[in-house]
């Protein structure tokens, strides 16, 4: 360290240089530019994904929703649907993209249902890599998936085989945040049991879900620990306003009572939302520094042939070998 000529205490003092103002300069530029964030939601039909997204961001994801019947679903493969919305709050602009995956887990045989999703994620990496390596890099759009909410059914006893396979296939490509949906079908005890089972199974299978970074010195360590301890978040979504004690709140009205979305004693909705918005920066960083860099180095190490060609080559080689043996 260099000793300053005149040790400074106050910004007006003789020793003040002024580069402590840099974060403000960065702030100003960031606010002008705005932010981008892509969130993917994956889970079987009917787990409340769309309702939860609408609750989180106060949006209207499917204004005229058409829900296909079972017979139609037989023929359906997994679709990828991306929707964008611009949200502005206190001068900060966010361009949020929600990537929905209708059809996931619907088919009788769900063997390949996450291949489409993997391809989508890889394609965004591929596109970014291509743009980043190009000549004109002034306006690269970042459509890489920064976070994936994976919806676990509250009706089972833990993870289903499909859940395990999906998370194992994707934990090296995207930040996975497991979410237990429709948590109002469980009592608090059942919820705890389910959470514990899910965590055990995640650890058993070596699945790497998104880890919250350690709290900074000025952050509430206890709050962070509480948040960590609640994963997977058990949430309820709703966009219906119900009057409770004279106030209008979002909730679900049952004969036996009202489930309040934003009541921390009823579910983890607030925790999930807080976690997401206070970690957008970190989620982007981990996507860039870990998942994207992995993709990039794998991609560049290969002989340079596009992925499909290589797979076809392997198949052809295998076939040749089989023919030789016969």
């Amino acid at each position: 360290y260099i000793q300053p000529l005149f040790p400074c205490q106050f910004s007006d003092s003789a020793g003040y240089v002024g580069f402590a103002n840099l974060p403000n300069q960065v702030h100003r530029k960031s606010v002008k530019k705005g932010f981008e964030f892509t969130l993917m939601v994956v889970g079987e039909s009917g787990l409340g994904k769309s309702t939860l997204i609408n609750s989180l961001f106060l949006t209207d994801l499917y204004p005229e929703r058409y829900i296909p019947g079972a017979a139609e679903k037989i023929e359906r493969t997994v679709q990828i649907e991306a929707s964008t919305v611009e949200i502005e709050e206190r001068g900060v602009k966010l361009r949020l993209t929600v990537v929905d995956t209708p059809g996931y887990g619907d088919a009788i045989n769900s063997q390949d249902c996450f291949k489409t999703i993997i391809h989508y994620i890889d394609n965004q990496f591929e596109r970014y890599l291509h743009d980043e390596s190009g000549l004109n890099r002034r306006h690269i759009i970042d459509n890489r998936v920064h976070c994936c909410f994976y919806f676990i059914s509250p009706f089972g006893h833990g993870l289903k085989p499909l859940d395990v396979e999906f998370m194992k296939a994707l934990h090296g490509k995207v930040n996975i945040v497991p979410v237990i949906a429709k948590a109002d079908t469980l009592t608090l005890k059942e919820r705890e049991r389910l959470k514990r089972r899910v965590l055990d199974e995640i650890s058993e299978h070596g699945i790497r879900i998104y880890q919250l970074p350690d709290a900074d010195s000025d952050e509430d360590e206890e709050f962070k620990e509480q948040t960590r301890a609640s994963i997977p978040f058990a949430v309820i979504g709703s966009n219906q306003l119900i009057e409770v004690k004279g106030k209008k709140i979002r909730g679900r009205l049952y004969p036996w009572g009202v489930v309040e979305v934003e009541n921390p004693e009823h579910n983890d909705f607030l925790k999930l939302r807080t976690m997401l918005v206070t970690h957008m920066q970190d989620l982007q960083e981990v996507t860039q520094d870990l998942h994207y860099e992995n993709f990039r180095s794998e991609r560049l190490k290969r002989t340079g042939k596009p992925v499909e060609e290589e797979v076809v080559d392997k198949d052809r080689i295998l076939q040749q070998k089989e023919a030789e043996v016969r």
Partner: protein
Amino acid sequence: PHAGPLESKNQAAMSEVVPEPRQIPVVPMKPMGINASLLGYIGIDTIIEQMRKKTMKTGFDFNIMVVGQSGLGKSTLVNTLFKSHVSRKSSGWNREEKIPKTVEIKAIGHVIEEGGVKMKLTVIDTPGFGDQINNENCWEPIEKYINEQYEKFLKEEVNIARKKRIPDTRVHCCLYFISPTGHSLRPLDLEFMKHLSKVVNIIPVIAKADTMTLEEKTEFKQRVRKELEVNGIEFYPQKEFDEDLEDKTENDKIRQESMPFAVVGSDKEYQVNGKRVLGRKTPWGIIEVENLNHCEFALLRDFVIRTHLQDLKEVTHNIHYETYRAKRLNGNGGLPPMTVETEENHESNL
């Protein structure tokens, strides 16, 4: 997007770098509506805090170069700017040393901290510039140094396994010292700035401004501004990089009225009206460095450090570096080929 003529030439070169992507089906983006009946606060403005924390935690690099004849007060000025002994002359170098026979490039790094923000400051001095009898092409070693830093960064960037934070040694700002002759720019000044304004942010300053009266200063500044304009020299902040009207208004004022800053440097303190100030003591009075009535040092300091520090870095990264990179990827475009070091553990795609 379809490739234009320039781009398609590079697609061939690019295919060794990144293989052509197969046909990626474009997923169309639907616009999502906002549910107006639901009022509430989501909390996305906290992302600003997150960025601020990140900036404070990681600290930042800033590299400033000083160019000008011997004796124009470059080292003193840099020390004054950063209120620390950061220049070459303060780091154990002999004040009486001889003028070097060629232009030398001397980079000295320091870490200084203020208000929780850590800055790794590198001051790049260029002794010997303009001091020879024959100063032809004396800017070449400087241009070479600047390009070498771009090359270093580029090599790191195309590495297969690359560092999370690429160390940034690129020159963000070049202070060019104009001698206070009171007449006009010298031919060397014009030649240097013409060549270098294309590769680096140049901020011209009038050195040792305490040798001019206020009227002489105003006249000289006007003349210098005119000469720079007539010769097409784009100094920082460059007109073409103003991002929006707000920037343009602010920068127009700086370009047309304040620059070039007429400065005085000092690392000595004196007592004036009960306050300790940085200054130069003469029989006819004390020149207060930070007094705007005496000289424009405070304007320079505020400009470089307090308001445009981040922008200097961004223009270097987004404009100058990208220009260099595009030339390199285009197969040398006029640059002599760089010798590529072969290191065993240095896999790259160039």
